C-alpha cells in the first residue's frame, strides 16, 4: 500500500485515537496520545489488513524546549505488503521529570531493548517493562540521563567552536 492510502486508512479506521496524520518523506505518520500508546500498537499489529509485525526503528527525542516533553517515535513495517508507518507520541515533561508510558515489549518483543535504551539514556519510564536494567550504560552509572539535551557529566568535554 502506498503512503497516502495507508494514511487515509489509518485516519478512518482509528479516527478516535490517532490525529495529526501526514506524510513525512514518504512515510505515513500519525500521532497518538500517550494514554492510547499501548492500545494502538496492539490494534495495529493485529490488524490483518496491515500486518505490521516488525519494528524498523524506535527512538526518543528530547523536545522539552520546543514541545514541552519527550517524543517517542516508532516505525513499524510489513514485509508482505512492503509498507511502513510511523507512530509518534509526546510525553509531557518539565525540567527533570521522568515521564511514564506503557511498554510495548509485549506487542513487539524487539521493542524491549529499544525501551531499555531509552529508559537509561532519556529517563523515560516504561511501565510494566519485563527487564528494566541498564542496557548500554554500566550498572553503577549514576550521572543521570546523558542523552537529554544540556546534560553534563564529570568526564564530558564539549567540542569547542572553531
Amino acid at each position, binding site marked *: 500500500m502506498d503512503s497516502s492510502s495507508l494514511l487515509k486508512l489509518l485516519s478512518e479506521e482509528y479516527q478516535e485515537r490517532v490525529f495529526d496524520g501526514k506524510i513525512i518523506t514518504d512515510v505515513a505518520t500519525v500521532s497518538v496520545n500517550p494514554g492510547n500508546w499501548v492500545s494502538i500498537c496492539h490494534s495495529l499489529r493485529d490488524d490483518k489488513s496491515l500486518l505490521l509485525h516488525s519494528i524498523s526503528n524506535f527512538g526518543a527525542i528530547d523536545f522539552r524546549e520546543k514541545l514541552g516533553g519527550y517524543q517517542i517515535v516508532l516505525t513499524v513495517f510489513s514485509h508482505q505488503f512492503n509498507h511502513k508507518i510511523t507512530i509518534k507520541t509526546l510525553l509531557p515533561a518539565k525540567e527533570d521529570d521522568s515521564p511514564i508510558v506503557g511498554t510495548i515489549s509485549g506487542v513487539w518483543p524487539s521493542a524491549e531493548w529499544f525501551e531499555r535504551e531509552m529508559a537509561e539514556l532519556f529517563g523515560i519510564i516504561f511501565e510494566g517493562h519485563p527487564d528494566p536494567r541498564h542496557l*548500554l*550504560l*554500566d550498572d553503577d552509572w549514576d*550521572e543521570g540521563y*546523558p542523552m537529554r539535551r544540556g*546534560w553534563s*557529566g564529570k*568526564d*564530558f*568535554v*564539549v*567540542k569547542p567552536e572553531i
Partner: protein
Amino acid sequence: MGVVSKLPVYMERIPGGGILTTSAEKFFNWSRASSLWYMLFGLACCAIEGLMATGASRYDYDRLGMIFRASPRQADLMIVAGTLTHKMAKRVKILYDQMSEPKYVIAMGGCANNGGPFYYDCYSVLKGVDKIIPVDIYIPGCPPRPESVMEACLKLQEKIKKQKLGDWSSSTS
C-alpha cells in the same frame, strides 16, 4: 620471577659472575622478544586491522614469533585495539592483572591513545588506556595500518632486548 630477579644479586658475589648475568640476561631477553604471544582481545575497529588482518595471509604475525592466545594467562602482550569505554575499562584492568609477568601493552589507534574521535561530546569513553594500565608502545592512526602495528611489535622487541634482569623484581615483590 622469584629466582630470576634474585639472580643478579647472587651472581655479583661470585668473582666473574657479571659475565654469567649478562649471558643469562641476553638469553631471557632473546626468548621473550622472539615469542611474544598476544592476547586475542579486540575492542573495536582496530581489532580487524591489528589482530585479524595483521595476523592473516598478507602480513602474518607468525614471522615475528607472535601467535594469539585466547587466555590472558598464556599471553605476554595485550594489544588494546579500539575504543575503551568506562564499562569495559574495569574488565580490561582485570584482564591485565590476570596476565603473568613480564607483560607488555600496545595502545593501538587514536581511541586507545587518548580517546581519538570520541574525545569530545562523549560520555562513555575512557580518554586513553594509559589512565588504567601502563602502556609500552603507542600507535597513532584511526585505524593504524598493519605495517605500523608490525613496526610497533618490532619496537617492542627492541625494548625487551634492552631489559635488565632485575627490572621486574620491584613490580613483583
